[in-house]
C-alpha cells in the first residue's frame, strides 16, 4: 500500500498553531526584556528582538522545507544525519569560538551556530531508527547498550565543550525507553535514587545511614511478621555497635561514629546472611541487598559531588537545596529571578513595564531567564497561561506519537516530547528555584537562532512524519 498524502492538508495544524503562539509570545518577551527607549522599533535589527525576528522567519522557512521533503528521507538518512552532527561536534571542539567558557559555537560572520542544539534531533532520529529495527526487544541489555552508545558519543563531546547543561538533556530519553518497553520499575528506581541523592546532600551522612537502617529493619519486620526474629536482628546490630564503640574508646582509635555504624552493619550482616540463607527467606536477601546498594550509592554521591563536579556546579546544587546560601554568588541569578517573578504579582506590571528585568538585574534575561520577563510583566496569569500552553503542547504531541503506525515515528515522537519536557521543566524550574541552574533555553522563548531552529527541526520533522502516518507501515 503506498499512497502519498498532501502534507498541507494532513499536517496537524493545531500543533502548528501552538508553535506559532509560543514563538510570537517568546519574541514579544525578548522585546520587553531588552526594551530600550532609543530603539523603540520592534523591527530594529540592531537589537536582539530585531534579530530574533529574522531567526523566526528563517525558522519558518526551515519548517516549510522540512515539510516539503519526503517523510522517507528522515528515516532513510537518520544515521547519516547523526554522523554528520557528530562530525560537527568534533570540529567545533577544535575550530569553535569560546564564549563564556564553553567552546561550542561556530561563528560565520555575525551568525553564531551551536551544533549541540542540533544534535538533539539528530540523536533522536538515530535512536528512533535503531529502536524501530525489526524484531528488536527494548528490554534486552544489548539494545540498551546500543542506545546508550548512541547517546554517550554526543554527550561526551558536549561535555568536552564545557556545556554540561546541553549534555544533561539526553537523560530525558529515559521516557522514550520506558514507553518502548522498559518496566515502570526503571522510572521508580530512578526517582528513588534522585530522592536519596538529594537526601545525601542535605542531611548528614549519619542520619541518612540510620534512616536506611531503620527502614530496612521495619521492612523486614513487616514482611516476616515475626516479632522474635525482628527483636533479635535489632539486638545483634545494636549490641555489635556498642561493643565496637567501647573498643574504640578503650584503644583510642578515634574513628568516627559513622565508621562504627558501617562496620557493625558489615559484621552483623554475616549473621543475617547465615540466618536468611538457612531459613531461605527470599525477602531478607532483597532487603539486605537494597540496603547495601543504597549505602554504596550514598558513598558514591558524596564522592561524585566533591570530586567530580566542578565548584560552580556544586554551588548551584547546594544553593538549590538550601545547604548554602550566597545570594550574591551562586544564588544571585536565582534570587534576582525570584524577585522579578515575585514582583509581578497576580496581574503583572504590564507589557514593557517591568523594572527588574529591564534594569538588567537578572542576568541572561533574554536567553536562559526569559521566563522572568513573563512573570514580571504578565504576572501569575501570564506564567500560568504559558505553563498550561506548554502542557497542552506536550499532551498533544503524546497523542500524535501514539497514533503513529510505525515504530520509527512513534519513538521519534516520544523523543520530541521528552526533549521539550526536559527543557521546559529545567528552565522554568530554575527561574523559580525548583531546579538547579543549568543553562538550557526555554523552547521558542529564549533568544537565539540556534535553539529556535533546532527546536523547529525537532518538531517539524515529527509533524512531517505524522502527516504521512497513513502512507505505509515502517
Amino acid at each position, binding site marked *: 500500500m503506498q499512497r502519498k498524502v498532501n502534507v498541507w492538508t494532513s499536517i496537524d495544524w493545531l500543533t502548528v498553531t501552538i508553535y506559532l503562539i509560543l514563538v510570537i509570545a517568546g519574541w514579544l518577551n525578548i522585546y520587553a526584556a531588552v526594551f*530600550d*527607549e532609543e530603539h523603540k522599533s520592534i523591527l530594529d535589527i540592531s537589537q536582539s528582538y530585531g534579530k530574533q525576528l529574522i531567526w523566526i522567519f528563517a525558522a519558518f522557512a526551515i519548517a516549510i522545507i522540512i515539510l516539503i521533503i519526503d517523510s522517507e528521507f528522515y528515516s532513510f538518512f537518520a544515521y547519516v544525519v547523526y554522523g554528520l552532527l557528530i562530525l560537527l561536534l568534533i570540529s567545533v571542539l577544535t575550530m569553535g569560538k569560546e564564549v563564556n567558557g564553553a567552546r561550542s559555537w561556530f561563528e560565520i560572520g555575525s551568525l553564531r551556530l551551536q551544533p549541540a542544539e542540533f544534535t538533539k534531533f539528530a540523536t533522536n532520529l538515530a535512536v528512533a531508527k535503531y529502536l524501530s529495527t525489526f524484531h528488536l526487544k527494548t528490554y534486552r541489555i544489548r539494545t540498551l547498550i546500543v542506545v546508550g552508545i548512541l547517546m554517550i558519543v554526543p554527550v561526551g563531546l558536549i561535555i568536552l565543550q564545557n556545556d554540561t547543561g546541553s549534555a544533561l538533556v539526553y537523560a530525558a530519553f529515559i*521516557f522514550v525507553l*520506558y*514507553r518502548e518497553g522498559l*518496566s*515502570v520499575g526503571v*522510572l521508580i528506581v530512578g526517582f528513588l535514587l534522585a530522592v536519596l541523592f538529594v537526601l545525601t546532600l542535605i542531611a548528614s551522612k549519619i542520619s541518612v545511614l540510620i534512616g536506611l537502617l531503620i527502614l530496612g529493619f521495619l521492612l523486614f519486620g513487616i514482611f516476616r511478621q515475626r516479632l522474635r526474629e525482628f527483636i533479635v536482628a535489632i539486638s545483634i546490630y545494636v549490641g555489635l555497635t556498642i561493643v565496637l564503640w567501647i573498643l574504640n574508646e578503650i584503644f583510642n582509635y578515634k574513628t568516627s561514629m559513622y565508621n562504627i555504624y558501617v562496620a557493625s552493619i558489615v559484621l552483623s550482616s554475616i549473621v543475617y546472611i547465615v540466618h536468611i540463607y538457612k531459613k531461605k527467606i527470599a525477602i531478607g536477601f532483597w532487603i539486605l541487598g537494597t540496603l547495601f546498594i543504597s549505602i554504596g550509592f550514598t558513598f558514591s554521591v558524596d564522592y561524585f559531588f566533591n570530586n567530580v563536579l566542578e565548584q560552580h556546579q556544586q554551588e548551584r546544587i547546594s544553593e538549590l537545596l538550601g545547604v548554602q546560601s*550566597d*545570594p*550574591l554568588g551562586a544564588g544571585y541569578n536565582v*534570587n534576582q529571578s*525570584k*524577585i522579578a*517573578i*515575585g*514582583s*509581578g*504579582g*497576580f496581574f503583572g*506590571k504590564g507589557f514593557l*513595564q517591568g*523594572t*527588574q528585568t*529591564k*534594569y*538588567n*538585574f537578572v542576568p541572561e534575561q533574554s536567553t536562559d531567564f526569559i521566563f522572568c520577563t513573563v*512573570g514580571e510583566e504578565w*504576572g*501569575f496569569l501570564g*506564567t*500560568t497561561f504559558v*505553563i*498550561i500552553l*506548554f*502542557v497542552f503542547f*506536550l*499532551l498533544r504531541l*503524546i497523542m500524535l*506519537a*501514539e497514533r503513529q503506525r510505525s515504530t520509527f515515528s512513534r519513538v521519534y515522537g*516520544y523523543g520530541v*516530547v521528552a526533549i521539550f*519536557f526536559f527543557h521546559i*521543566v529545567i528552565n*522554568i*524550574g530554575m527561574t*523559580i528555584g*525548583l531546579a538547579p541552574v543549568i543553562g538550557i533555553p526555554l523552547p521558542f522563548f529564549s533568544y537565539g537562532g540556534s535553539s529556535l531552529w533546532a527546536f523547529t527541526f525537532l518538531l517539524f520533522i515529527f509533524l512531517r512524519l505524522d502527516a504521512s502516518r497513513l502512507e505505509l507501515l515502517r
Partner: protein
Amino acid sequence: MKSFIEKKIVIGAIIVLIAFIYILRLFYLQVIDTKYKYSADNNVLRYETQYPARGLIYDRYGELMVFNEAAYDLMVIPRQINNLDTLDLCNVLKISIQDFREKLYKAKVYSRYKPSLFVKQLSNEDYAILQEKLHKYSGFFVQTRTLRAYLQKTAAHVLGYVGEVDDKIVSEKPYYKSGDYIGISGIEKSYEEILRGQKGVKIFMVDVHNRIKGSFANGELDTIPIVGKNIHLTISAKLQLLGEKLMNKKTGSIVAIEPSTGEILALVSSPSYDPNLLVGRVRSENYSKLNKDSIKPLFNRALMAKYPPGSIFKIVESLIGLEYGVINPNTGFACNKSLVNCHNHPTATNLTMAIQHSCNPYYFMVYNRIIQQGVSTNRFKDSEIGVARWSKSVKEFGLGQLLDIDLPGMKKGRIPDVDFYNRWYGEGRWAFSTIYSNGIGQGEVEIVPLQMANFTSVIANKGYYYTPHLIKKIENTDTIPSKYLKKNKVNVKPEYFDLVTNAMELVVEAGTARRAKIKDIPVCGKTGTAENPQGEDHSVFIAFAPRENPKIAIAVYVENAGFGGTWAAPIASLMIEQYLTDSISRPDLEKYVIDYK
C-alpha cells in the same frame, strides 16, 4: 510484565503533575508571598554594592605599610535620570557641561540600567555639598569606597598598585563590575583575592525623587561584605627604605634574601616612584607620565632587567668545575692575558686565590675544561656535550629560570644551551672558542638581580634554596603557599661550598671588596664588573653574612658605575650592617654612597 496503566497515561500524568507543582509554586511566589512586592508604579530597587575594606599590608616586623582612606564616588544610572538641573549639578561637581555630556554618554554606552561611575573620588567638601542636594538629582547616588594610602614612599615595585578594572577583566572575571578596583601589579595583584575580600550588596527601594524608602524585603536578600584579609610581607620596611636611599641617583637593583627561608628582606629597583602617585583620580595621568619617562621608573629591574653577571659568575664556574672534577682546590693557572684581558694581581696558584683576585684567564681555563672534556674527538661535538651538561648544572642554581616568586612579570634571563647556540650560529658551527666569554659571566649569559640574590643564598645554605617570596603571613591562616616551603637542592657537594665560602671571605678581607668589610661581622662576597658595550661597566656585588648561619644574602647591581668594589660592595655592606645590627656605624660611607659621583 504488563503494566496495569497505559504508559502514555503515566507520562502524561507526570507532565501534568509537574506543571501543577510549578503553578502552585508560582502562585506562592507571585500572589501569596509578599516579600517580593513593592509598589510597581514608581519605586525601583537600587542595588548598592557594599565594598569591603581592602586588607592592610604590614612589613615583617608588623609595621604598617599600606592602609585605606575613605573616598566618595558619584554613580549614575542613566535610565533613572529625571528632570535634572544639569547646570546646577555641573556647578556642584565643578565640571563643564561638555564634560558632563561626555561622561553621561560613556555611562549610557556601558548600560542604561546598571550604575556607572560618574565622578570618582570626590573631595570631602564636594561630597558635603553634593549630599545636601542629592535628592534633586534622581539617577545619581554616592558610593563609599576606599583608596590605598602609604605611610612611607617606599617599595612601590613590591607593593604594586590598585586600579579600576578594564572591559577585558569584566568580561573574563564575573566577580568584577565596571568601576570596581583590582590589584594591577605587585603584591596587590598576586594576593588580590585575599586582599580584596568579598563584596556585599544592599537592596534599597527608591522613589522617583531618588529618596531611599527603606531596605527591600527587610534586608533578607542583602549580603554582608567580607573584609579583605591583612597580610604581612617578608620585607623589612626599614631595610627597604635604606636600600632605596643608597640607590639614590643610581640605576640598578638590590635584592636581599634570608637564606634559611627564602624570605625577601628588601627588593629595590632604582629609579623608583612614590606609590602615592598611582592612587585615585591622579593615577592615570601620573601613570602615563611615569610610563613615558626615559629613566623607566615603572620598570622593576630586580625582576625584569637582564644583566651580564660579570665576575660573580666565577663562583658558579668554580662550583661546577669542582663537582665535575675538572679542577681541584689546588689547580693553578697562569694569568695569561693573551687568552682574555685581566688586571694586575698575584698569580693564582690555587682556586681560592683565583676567586680572591678574580683572575679572568684562570676562569677561561676552568670553563674550557668544563666545556671540552674530550668526550668526543670532534671539537664541535665535544663542546655541544659540554654546554648541554653545563647549562643544566647552572640552571639548578635557579639561574636562567623563572623563580616562582609572588610578584608578577619576572623575566627568565638566559643561560645559553645547545639549542640556543644552534639557532644563533647554526649546528656544528660553534665550539668553546666561540663561547668562552660565558666563563667570566659575559657573552650570552644574562641574569636578573633576583636570581643573583637567590644564587647567593644557595652558597650561604651550602647547596639549596627556598623559592624567594614576599609573603610572610596571611592573617587568620597558619600557612603560606606550600611552594615556598619546598627545598630546592643543588647537585654540588657541601665541602666545595666551604671552599668557595673561604675564598669569598678573603675577597672581603683582602681581595677586591675591602670596602664591604664590617667590624665584627665576617662577610663573604664577590665583586663583579660587567662589561657593557654601550657605556661604562656595571658594578656588581654579591655577599652573605655572617659567615656561620648566614642571616642575609644580598645582590647589588649598579648600572654604569664601574668597578664592583667601588659602589656595589659598600651598598651591600651597609645593607648587611643595617639588617644585622639595626644601625649604621659608618655614616661617612653612607654619605659617600648616597652622594655618588
